[in-house]
């Protein structure tokens, strides 16, 4: 999906979603709560939480929300890739201090939903997402790296 | 005295608050007294200056002289390239910095 769908949730959040399934409306629980009460289907990871602790439970999780306390804190990018590399196919949401210029990188790390604290400019985002014709690296998205284009 | 300084957002030039506007010349700077923070916020918000901050300075006959060497170098230019300073013709300008 190239352009996001804007969704207003019951909780009053504005979500930018790059998936067209129904928004999961169960509130996300903390990692500790999830590990103690294993029937939850939505989890919120704080920046310092270890995403690998979720790996045994991915089959039951529909939504993982990863927190960005400040836009400078890049731990969530690794958390997202770890979940995608392990095969997680549910919604992966970046929440908090998420800036428009960061969303293309976050997309590459596997995020497909965004709950930015401050609204992002839709026109800027559309432009940024279409800017780079191809990436240099393989990441968690489907984009084909340059070396693959060169060598097949 | 207290001076308000920063850089021009677009050109990056070092600028000094003159009471009404911004000047590249520290000689034009005025004592902002206790008003510094308020002016700073208003001017930065209006993008008439970038990264402004308040400094201490001494009033001299030649005009305000910033208390710290860093701001005196900002006011004049690099001491190792007198030709690129604001006073290329003044052989003694470097002495004002040190």
């Amino acid at each position, binding site marked *: 999906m190239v352009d996001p769908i804007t969704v207003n949730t019951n909780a009053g959040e504005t979500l930018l979603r790059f998936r067209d399934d129904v928004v999961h409306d169960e509130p996300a629980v903390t990692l500790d709560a999830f590990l103690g009460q294993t029937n939850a289907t939505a989890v919120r990871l704080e920046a310092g939480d270890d995403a690998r602790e979720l790996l045994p439970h991915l089959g039951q999780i529909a939504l993982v929300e990863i927190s960005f306390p400040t836009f400078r804190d890049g731990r969530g990018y690794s958390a997202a890739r770890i979940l995608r590399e392990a095969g997680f196919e549910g919604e992966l949401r970046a929440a908090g201090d998420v800036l428009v*210029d960061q969303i293309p990188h976050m997309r590459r*790390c596997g995020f497909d939903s965004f709950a930015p604290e401050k609204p992002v400019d839709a026109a800027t985002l559309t432009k940024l997402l279409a800017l*780079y014709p191809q990436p240099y690296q393989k990441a968690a998205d489907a984009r084909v790296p340059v070396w693959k284009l060169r060598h097949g | 005295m207290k001076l308000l300084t920063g850089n021009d957002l*677009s*050109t*990056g030039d070092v600028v000094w608050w003159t009471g009404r506007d911004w000047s590249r010349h520290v000689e034009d700077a005025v004592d902002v007294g206790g008003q510094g923070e308020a002016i700073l916020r208003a001017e930065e918000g209006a993008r008439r200056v970038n990264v402004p901050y308040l400094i201490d300075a001494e009033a001299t006959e030649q005009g305000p002289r910033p208390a710290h060497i860093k701001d005196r*170098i900002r006011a004049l230019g690099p001491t*190792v390239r007198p030709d*690129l300073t604001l006073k290329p013709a003044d052989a003694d300008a470097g002495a004002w910095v040190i």
Partner: protein
Amino acid sequence: MYRYDEYDQSIVDARVEEFRDQVERRLSGALTEDQFKPLRLMNGLYLQLHAYMLRVAVPYGTLDSRQMRMLGHIARKYDRGYGHFTTRQNIQYNWIKLADAPDILAELATVQMHAIQTSGNCIRNISSDQFAGAAADEVADPRPWAELLRQWSTFHPEFTYLPRKFKIAVIAADEDRAAMRLHDIGIQLLERDGVLGAKIFVGGGMGRTPMIAHEVKDFITADHLMSYLEACLRVYNRYGRRDNIYKARIKILLHEIGVDAYRDQVEAEFAAIRDLGIDPPLAELARITAMFAGPDFASDAPDSVDRSDPDFAVWLDQNVAAHKQPGHAIVTISLKPIGGIPGDASADQIDLMADLAERYGHDELRVTHAQNIVLPHVRKADLYAIWTALRDARLAEANLDLISDIIACPGLDYCSLANARSIPLAQKIGERFAGRQRELGELKLKISGCINACGHHHAGHIGILGVDKKGTENYQLLLGGSGAEDVSLGKITGPGFDEDGVVDAIERVTDRYVALREADERFLDTYRRVGMQPFKEAIYG
């Protein structure tokens, strides 16, 4: 040399457009300075003492004459007629206007250059050996590996908001001309059972807590280099400290958890990702390597040089190094004229060096981490003509690796982080020792104007650190550092000095060295043999 294909070019062109848009958003107020700062830094744009400063990447220090001329053109058109070559093989311009920055990047892109990731908390420009491809002692040219790393690290989506900046150097010889073990990751290529691979060192760096990198991986082959490095970076991105900017470099993580625990975590991560298809095929390294095949050297180039001009002979002995090809040589052009500004070159000098590379040097130039320029492939028969042209442009100082070949950061004359000026001190030291520097032999002197150590003072045989002592400039003296294969960190002699005082102290140190020197010991060798005490006595009485 590496040449962009349409993919590389389209990525660099897109970056120009992205940055043009970011600058417009900043000027219009859509971005605050706090939001814009990391974006501009990731394109090498700082706000310094007098203006914006733009740092342009010279990937692994290699460029051709067309690119070099572009650097001169930018100095003339957008700056004030000069540029400053840096310790990470880049060039920076001191007088840039924000509104001009996108146009400068657009001009750079026309010659396959950019300012991508020359600052910011991301993977910086990959540095390498300035003699790569020309040195007699290398097992391979390290630059194809560096180019592979350049592509991998460019806009790496996971590692753009690291805890702190991240510097990588690649070498392929036992002699370390790139301060490899003082990088966050140092890579040494070596051959094992006929296969080229890499030894990986992690956790080196200077700054306020200098450390020497530890060996973390004995040998990794090219087919898994990227996934291994992703593992190294991911462990750092997840667990590097973010609570204190001064403890955020990877060296602190290794120091706190220990190299063995770090290695174990990297191995676990590597095991999880090594088969995910992250690594480019070996054909990609082969494609890049073919472009570094090197020039067709004349096989009949005469090996003898006419030394009858004594000034030329001095330069020949000091600034010209052995080339792997008979009849050829490697020339280092000193950007350290006595009394000059270390690393600075005027637009005219830049053009002249480009001309010499084109005419005599197979169109190649290198930037060294010691802030000099190299012509890596010249015929010995052309050395005299090259020297004559350099001399006329004030570029023939015969001082490579001598006490006046000083690494100095811009210091308080230009830098908003500095506490003291570095350049005037370098000028005074050059003037004081010009007459006896050859007698003192190899003596690497490095000056930083603040604790961030951009002037590599920890790695100087003699190092100087400028500090702010109650509003006045004060200089601490260090002895015994080295950034080469015999890497070590300098130790502070004792109380600091004012500007003239530190020059006097260096003179007492060098006098004592001459008195203690055995046979052909370098200063560093004597220091290591006798220790700090005799020098302390000489300085402080």
